[in-house]
């Protein structure tokens, strides 16, 4: 006998030598059940006819098909392919038909071979099944390998090989559906499997009382196998036996199924069968827990589908759950049959071992999420591009540009290294501070307190941006971590998003698109945004490509739930943009309207536009409404009080030089943005169809420049609108124009001889590349050096410590500035929210006036005899003057109630002799006792009052030792309370107003995020997607 290579190596593989068996003599009754399967029946019958072993008898049962299945079967009988054709009933299950056939069968054969009308057996299928059965002692059921239909000469794709069931009723298959079936599988014990092609030992079938009516379809094979395992029989898969299975039922192509008879989808029916099966196989007290788990799990799955924008799936799940709850009798009947098995502990243990572990659901969930994220990232114009492709040179090689050179990790490591070098100032401890970035609160709780509560004395709502910062902090766990993370990833992440946009939505595949993406990512750096700590500019830069991408999708996604995704995406982008710069809503609305008009998709498109544009206004309605008091904020960016002066030289604004701090040297702005201007203008001339992009960009730039000329009133202060957002969008448009031209020109000129046009493209490409490298260098060298961490070095450290320890404030005046600047600092640092509006004592008009007057006197080198008295009410413990003028020093030195405290590094500090704090107990005789945060009110005399350096606010809740104090008439401008007999610690709280609205905001935001995100298609992973199989088959 000639040995095959496998046999030669069998000793090495340690496989037992298969014993020689002869299946040809086995008596097999094949039962083919048909129900409206005419579309596949001819193929099935042909496969049956080609079988190398003909069953002893082939009985066909037609369950009263409405198509010509019965005629096809009769014709097959006439041709001798089948022996008998029986007629069943329309309501009969597969099991009923099998039972009917066995009752009519001639004689009692050893084996039963079950056949579906939509499954084509390989010629050797029966032979292989019998061979395995004969070789395996105690084998009662052999389950063949089901494969998907494929094109001729294409590799077979695995569908399933045996099946099991999880505790939630989920169908579980051990093999990876969709992989090529290349003979890699070995026979394995299994809990059960599909009835399609199942070979059953007749003796065992009868011992098990056959199929049960409680599981009329889908899970009947698993039920039978499960009971067989419990009864001590063996159930095994037989991968050598193949069936091409169309799964006409699951893919909803068969009509007249039992599920349809019950007005249920096949998915819902399958779920019901799964739940019934699990419930029926659970005995004892555990069945109640299992019942609860099945119902609860089903509800959760329904919710999951709903969140995944699959309402039909959610409905199926809920219907299945309801049917399950109602179907107690069938479950009870099947459970009684299971209970009668009297399985031995060994058999029970063996059967349990064949079921997936409890955590398999979570593993599957994770895999599904990961799969779908990958799919989502690879979606777009070029469905074949994945994130990995995007990052690796393999992509280029696939496109035939160049061979792969650097793996992904090199790029990632390089970006991380550059980010670390650029953000070296962030590699320290303490909160991050910059010109436009106040220190983050210490905790999430404080971040939300700032975001949700208005400062005492102010009627306006906190800036919506603060809530976004708090939400971002939640994701990063701590506010400071959020700031650090966002600044660190700002450039790489923006670049990646821009690259994604360029490749997936503009279809830019050239290397230059990488350069353009990087150039775009560096725009915030060139505008000085990172140096100033303008987190909002980073968010805007990241969000802008998404906004444009969703606008691109608007005309193309017009069907079903998916049609709402672009609208939700636009709504989400605007929900982020409005808190940054409310005025941006106007051009965004124009863009949406233009898109809808050009798309011409009718009323529903307008409805989606209303959603997209109305949602951000509704979401931030409370804040926007409160802006009627400070309408100037509509034109400014977050923390407008931190905005610096604008650039006096108008033309420099066209080079991104807004005049604020943190900008690169002038020559860098000229080189980089000058190149961009040149490239954009050339692109506009060479690519006429894109001229509107140029116009759009220029309009944004012009608006930004024009707005920067005016100051707006914010809360009694004047602030300059920051033109950075307008310039960012304008320059982004110019970049987009440049890359479009370069890409199209490269493609169109590729096959022409070298000429002026190619030279122009080459020169512009090189210029853009060089400019981007210059920008990159600036980012690394000085693009983030304006950031600092920890307490300020401009004032002595003890000042901040005193503020925290005593609850006093410090009046800080910087005379080094051309216009002396000042702040009333508390708790050691200024934190989020204080750039939006005056807070603390300054929220009071009188407190504000007194503080300003004190500063004016200090700067003027004069002093008022009431200076210290006013400062005491403000809770000022120290006055610190940075680089004071001699007159100032002389005046403060000679002021009553002040004492020179220190003079270090150009900062002179004076302490108020009485060391006041912001919490003062005022006796009936006017005596003042200042309290630190840890001080308790020990005893009180009649008419003793508690004065806080806060404006009067009826919402303030002040307690002493847990006793809430009643407000009394203020002694000056401060919130004053009657201490009564209260003793103990003083606590001041500002309740969150309209909490219900916050919940609505949260829910609304969540829903929009949900709709905007790509669907994760949980159904695909949960049941291996019969519909997708169908889709695939249809595609084939």
């Amino acid at each position: 006998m000639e040995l095959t290579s496998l046999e030669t190596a069998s000793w090495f593989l340690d496989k037992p030598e298969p014993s020689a068996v002869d299946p040809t003599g086995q008596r097999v009754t094949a039962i083919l059940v048909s129900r409206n399967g005419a579309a596949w029946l001819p193929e099935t019958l042909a496969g049956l006819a080609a079988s190398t072993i003909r069953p002893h008898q082939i009985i066909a049962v037609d369950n009263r098909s409405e198509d010509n299945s019965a005629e096809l079967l009769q014709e097959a009988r006439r041709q001798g392919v089948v022996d008998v054709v029986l007629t069943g009933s329309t309501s009969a299950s597969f099991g009923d038909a099998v039972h009917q056939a066995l009752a009519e069968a001639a004689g009692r054969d050893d084996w039963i071979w079950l056949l579906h009308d939509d499954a084509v057996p390989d010629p050797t299928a029966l032979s292989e099944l019998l061979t395995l059965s004969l070789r395996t002692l105690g084998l009662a059921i052999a389950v063949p390998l089901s494969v998907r239909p494929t094109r001729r000469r294409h590799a077979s794709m695995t569908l399933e090989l045996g099946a099991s069931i999880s505790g939630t009723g989920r169908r579980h298959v051990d093999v990876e559906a969709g992989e090529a079936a290349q003979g890699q599988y070995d026979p394995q014990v299994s809990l059960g499997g599909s009835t399609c092609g199942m070979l059953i030992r007749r003796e065992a079938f009868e011992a098990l009382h056959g199929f049960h009516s409680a599981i009329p379809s889908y899970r009947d094979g698993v039920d039978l196998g499960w009971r067989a395992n419990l009864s001590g029989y063996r159930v095994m898969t037989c991968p050598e036996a193949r069936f091409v299975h169309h799964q006409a039922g699951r893919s909803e192509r068969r009509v007249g199924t039992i599920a349809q008879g019950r007005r249920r989808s096949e998915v819902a029916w399958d779920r019901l069968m799964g739940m019934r099966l699990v419930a029926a196989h659970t005995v004892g007290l555990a069945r109640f827990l299992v019942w609860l788990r099945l119902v609860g799990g089903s509800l959760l799955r329904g919710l999951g589908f709903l969140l995944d924008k699959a309402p039909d799936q959610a409905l199926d799940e809920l219907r299945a759950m309801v049917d399950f709850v109602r179907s107690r009798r069938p479950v009870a009947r099947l459970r009684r049959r299971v209970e009668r098995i009297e399985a031995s502990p060994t058999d029970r243990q063996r059967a349990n071992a064949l079921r997936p572990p409890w955590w398999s659901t979570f593993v599957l969930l994770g895999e599904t999420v990961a799969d779908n994220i990958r799919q989502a990232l690879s979606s777009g114009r070029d469905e074949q591009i994945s994130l990995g492709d995007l990052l690796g040179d393999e992509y280029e090689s696939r496109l035939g540009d160049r061979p792969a050179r650097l793996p992904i990790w090199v790029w990632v490591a390089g970006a991380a290294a550059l980010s670390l070098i650029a953000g070296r100032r962030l590699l320290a401890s303490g909160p991050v501070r910059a010109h436009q970035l106040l220190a983050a609160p210490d905790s999430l709780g404080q971040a939300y307190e700032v975001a949700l509560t208005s400062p005492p004395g102010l009627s306006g709502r906190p800036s919506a941006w603060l809530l976004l910062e708090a939400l971002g902090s939640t994701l990063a766990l701590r506010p400071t971590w959020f700031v650090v993370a966002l600044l660190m990833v700002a450039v790489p992440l923006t670049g990646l998003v821009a690259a994604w946009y360029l490749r997936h939505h503009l279809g830019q595949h050239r290397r230059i698109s990488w350069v353009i993406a990087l150039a775009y990512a560096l725009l915030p750096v060139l505008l000085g945004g990172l140096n100033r700590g303008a987190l909002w500019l980073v968010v805007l830069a990241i969000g802008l490509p998404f906004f444009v991408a969703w606008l691109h999708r608007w005309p193309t996604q017009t069907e079903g739930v998916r049609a709402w995704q672009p609208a939700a995406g636009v709504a989400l982008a605007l929900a982020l943009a409005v808190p940054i710069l409310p005025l941006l809503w106007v051009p965004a609305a124009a863009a949406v309207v233009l898109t809808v008009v050009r798309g011409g998709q009718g009323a529903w498109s307008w409805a989606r536009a209303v959603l997209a544009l109305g949602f951000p206004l509704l979401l931030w309605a409370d804040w926007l409404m409160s802006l009627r008091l400070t309408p100037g904020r509509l034109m400014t960016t977050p923390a407008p009080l931190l905005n610096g002066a604008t650039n006096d030289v108008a033309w420099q604004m066209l080079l991104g030089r807004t005049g604020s701090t943190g900008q690169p040297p002038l020559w860098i702005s000229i080189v980089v943005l000058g190149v961009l201007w040149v490239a954009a203008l050339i692109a506009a001339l060479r690519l006429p169809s894109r001229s509107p992009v140029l116009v759009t960009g220029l309009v944004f730039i012009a608006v930004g420049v024009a707005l920067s000329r005016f100051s707006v009133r914010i809360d009694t202060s004047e602030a300059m609108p920051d033109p950075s957002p307008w310039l960012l969008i304008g320059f982004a448009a110019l970049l987009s124009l440049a890359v479009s031209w370069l890409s199209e020109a490269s493609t169109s000129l590729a096959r022409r001889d070298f000429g002026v046009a190619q030279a122009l493209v080459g020169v512009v490409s090189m210029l853009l590349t060089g400019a981007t490298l210059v920008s990159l260098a600036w980012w690394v060298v000085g693009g983030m050096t304006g950031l600092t961490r920890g307490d300020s070095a401009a004032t002595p450290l003890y000042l901040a410590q005193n503020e925290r320890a005593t609850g006093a404030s410090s009046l800080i005046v910087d005379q080094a500035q051309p216009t002396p600047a000042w702040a009333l600092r508390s708790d050691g640092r200024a934190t989020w929210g204080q750039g939006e509006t005056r807070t603390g004592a300054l929220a009071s008009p009188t407190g504000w006036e007194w503080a300003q007057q004190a500063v004016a006197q200090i700067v003027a080198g004069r002093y008022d005899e009431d200076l210290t008295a006013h400062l005491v009410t403000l809770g000022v413990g120290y006055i610190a003057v940075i680089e004071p003028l001699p007159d100032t020093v002389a005046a403060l030195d000679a002021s009553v109630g002040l004492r020179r405290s220190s003079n270090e590094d150009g900062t002179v500090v004076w302490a108020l002799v009485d060391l006041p704090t912001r919490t003062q107990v005022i006796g009936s005789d006017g005596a003042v006792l200042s309290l630190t945060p840890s001080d308790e009110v020990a005893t009180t005399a009649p008419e003793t009052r508690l004065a806080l350096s806060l404006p009067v606010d009826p919402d303030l809740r002040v307690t002493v030792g847990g006793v809430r104090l009643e407000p009394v008439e203020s002694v000056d401008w401060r919130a004053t309370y009657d201490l009564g007999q209260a003793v103990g610690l003083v606590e001041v709280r500002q309740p969150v107003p309209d909490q219900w609205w916050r919940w609505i905001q949260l829910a609304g935001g969540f829903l929009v995020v949900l709709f905007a995100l790509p669907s994760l298609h949980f159904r695909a992973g949960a049941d291996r997607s019969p519909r997708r199989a169908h889709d695939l088959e249809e595609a084939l």
Partner: protein
Amino acid sequence: MRVKDWICLAVATVAVATVATAVLAPQGGAAQPVIPVQGQRQVACPVGDPAFGPTTVAAAAQTELTVWQVGSEATAPALSAELEDPAQPVVAVGDQSLGAVSTSSQHGKVQAVVCRPPISNGWWNGVWVTESQRSSLILTNIDSTAAVVTISLQGEAGPLETTGLRDLEIPRFSTRVVALNSYLTAEEPISVVLKASQGRLMATLRSQGDLGTDWQQSAAAPAVLSVIPWSPAGEGNRLLFLTNPSSDRRAEVQVEALGLEQSYVIAGAEEVSVAPGATARVELSQALRGQGVGLRVTSTQPVSATLVATGPDLAGLSAQPGLGGGIVLPVVPGASLALANPTPDPITLTIARRDAEGSEVGLEEIVLAEGSLEAPLAGDAGSIMLTASGPDLRVALVLSRIGQTEGLALAPLGVGGAAGLNIAIAYRPTVG
């Protein structure tokens, strides 16, 4: 629209925007709030011993003021006040325009000062402590808490060792006269530095002897640019005393004359080197040849500068800060104003005359380019309000006669009041 139209439109948009923005000056500077300095101003005036001659303290303000002698009750509020021969130093309290002048003819000579707020640091140069010329510091505590001061003396070569001048306590509402001659006698004039470690006080240097009699207020804090409003015209010596307070750095000083028509470096004062902690004396008489000029002193290190004029009377005038805000002064008969502008930009001094009832009776404007001048003040009663268009104008009262008594007194206005003084400040929470 064709492509070219689009591009033209775009370029035109940017061009218009750019031109418009170039025309529209950014309102950043104007956006900063300008705060008028308000509040009460309090000044203290020295008085002489009635036994040696009469003293008059006169005060005026835009609104009502009160005056009180230390340890006494305040007067009723009025637009102006005048006290003849007060026994104790006088304190005047009013609005930020408040000004007061104390004039005296002690020992047959003329003394005058423009009263100032209390101080905690003071510098005096060119102080004679010889056998024939005695100097004393008059320290008056006008507050309700005690003040503690330390006085240190510096000679030509550096600090002078003295005992008994540390931690001098001046009880509340009291005056203490520190006779410097009791501590040392020096051939050459010395410098006096006062530091209050607690509280504040009115400090006036009184000098009397053969050279004449003089009251002198503290000089401005040492600086690299000092301006002495006036070196009076006429005969006599004009001595400039320069004190370098640094303990380790030598100061190289140049002295320029701010004449009426030009400024020039004074011969012999092109490069004066002042050792650390030392005082240098520069003889200006020969170079100035009797001309009245202002003096601009520039140095590589902060120095304190005082001009001392001798002749018919002793008169000292130290470097002063610019007149930062408006101030109302009672009219002193026979007095004139000495003005010095050390900057190249012309400064306008507005003099508004008011009668005793506060009604404006005249308005005069003096425009002064870089240089100095002396302008006589007409009138015998009422008040004048001085307002400068820039912060750098130095102003001093020049008084050569009180009644029949002749002499010379130079009384700088210092920073003046703060009436009409608007300060641009910016609230920035990130400061510090």
